[in-house]
């Protein structure tokens, strides 16, 4: 009897140790906040729940940074971390928040659009929980998230996700993917409430331009591009041609498919007057046939297996020993954002949106991304927000 109790107690302690050792790092990651220094352009910070009460008091509620210009003009919204395992979007949005000055118009920035996904991870793929950037004042740590919201926040998954309102049948996992749940609904699944919040922001504030910032596999054809529906095509094409001529990097234009529902570049344009754009930068970390999913791969984008595939012409982007580093990806996004806004302003001068002090592609490649983040410890009181 005594032996039996001892055996059971010993095994139970081992199991408890397993749970604590495996679970605590995940819990800490879920609760880890990134301090963001509000730049000179930030007038106020709102919450998404102001537009979608259905996300209030949930982990999905997220910051909306409002950058207001000295003179009125048009309005733009930047969405990042729609997929929280594509950090070039998050970093581009945060560089805008921490540095931009708006001369004309208003810019709404949502750096962590899928806030639940930003606190989720993909242990089966061995994702790092964090990544670090060197700045002028020390190391800044960011959470590495996952493509989809955490099942802790939206559970269970359906057998098939039926898109609202078109009733198109999508993969079950896309019920937690905030780039399949557009335009959303006020009382639907949590991720549908998130996209509904952004749709309401776009409709109520009469937003002119909506830019959703992503990363994509080098083996996926829709990479290194601007995805645009018919109504945004002209501006997307002009932006792509201009950055190629003036800044020397390529980003082609992909048409947004009419019959594939739930995507931001389709539904925003169909359910509001805004012009939607989705930016994709090549992210080798996301490809399947790579070595281990390390922080180094995430940052420098160098992988010998992808290099071998590039030699066999199996990638959709040029790829060599230099990989596809983070600064290049963030730089492309920032230049494209500025160029899209410039082209929109040329066509609609009374609704133009003018940003300054935002670095461009060449600045990022030369200086790195960390240079553009400010020390939260040295920031004025009340100018730091936890993200």
């Amino acid at each position, binding site marked *: 009897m005594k032996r039996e109790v001892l*055996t059971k107690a010993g*095994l139970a302690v081992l199991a408890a140790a397993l*749970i604590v050792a*495996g679970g605590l790092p995940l*819990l800490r990651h*879920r609760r880890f906040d990134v301090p963001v220094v509000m730049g000179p352009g930030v007038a106020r910070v709102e919450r998404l729940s102001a537009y979608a009460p259905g996300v209030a008091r949930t982990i999905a509620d997220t910051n909306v940074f409002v950058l207001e210009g000295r003179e009125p003009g048009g309005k733009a919204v930047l969405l990042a971390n729609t997929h929280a395992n594509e950090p070039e979007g998050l970093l581009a949005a945060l560089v805008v928040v921490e540095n931009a000055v708006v001369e004309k118009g208003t810019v709404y920035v949502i750096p962590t659009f899928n806030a639940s996904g930003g606190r989720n991870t993909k242990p089966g793929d061995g994702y790092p929980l964090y990544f670090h950037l060197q700045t002028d004042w020390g190391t800044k740590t960011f959470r590495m998230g996952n493509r989809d919201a955490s099942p802790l926040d939206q559970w269970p998954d359906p057998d098939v996700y039926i898109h609202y309102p078109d009733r198109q049948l999508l993969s079950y996992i896309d019920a937690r993917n905030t780039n399949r749940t557009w335009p959303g609904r006020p009382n639907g699944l949590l991720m549908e409430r998130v996209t509904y919040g952004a749709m309401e922001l776009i409709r109520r504030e009469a937003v002119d331009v909506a830019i959703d910032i992503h990363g994509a596999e080098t083996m996926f054809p829709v990479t290194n591009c601007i995805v645009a529906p018919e109504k945004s095509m002209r501006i997307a094409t002009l932006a792509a041609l201009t950055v190629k001529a003036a800044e020397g990097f390529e980003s082609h234009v992909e048409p947004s498919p009419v019959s594939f529902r739930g995507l931001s570049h389709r539904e925003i344009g169909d359910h509001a007057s805004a012009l939607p754009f989705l930016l994709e930068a090549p992210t080798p970390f996301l490809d399947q046939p790579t070595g281990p999913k390390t922080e180094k791969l995430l940052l420098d984008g160098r992988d010998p297996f992808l290099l071998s595939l590039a030699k066999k012409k199996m990638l959709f982007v040029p790829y060599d020993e230099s990989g596809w580093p983070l600064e290049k990806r963030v730089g492309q996004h920032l230049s494209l954002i500025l160029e899209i806004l410039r082209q929109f302003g040329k066509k609609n001068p009374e609704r133009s949106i003018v940003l300054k002090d935002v670095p461009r592609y060449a600045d990022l490649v030369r200086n790195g991304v960390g240079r553009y983040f400010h020390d939260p410890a040295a920031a004025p009181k009340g100018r730091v927000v936890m993200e």
Partner: protein
Amino acid sequence: MNLIMLVYYVICAVLLGLCLWNFFREKKSRDDLVLYLLVMVPLVLRLLRWK
């Protein structure tokens, strides 16, 4: 938390209870004890809302 999600948490708790019950009642097989504990790991993590 919507109603269906709440029900799934209740199902999780019931399954954990069944595993615990079997764990305490098992007298002979050490292999079964280990299996019950392994089955309990994800249930505990979900109920604690750690993962």
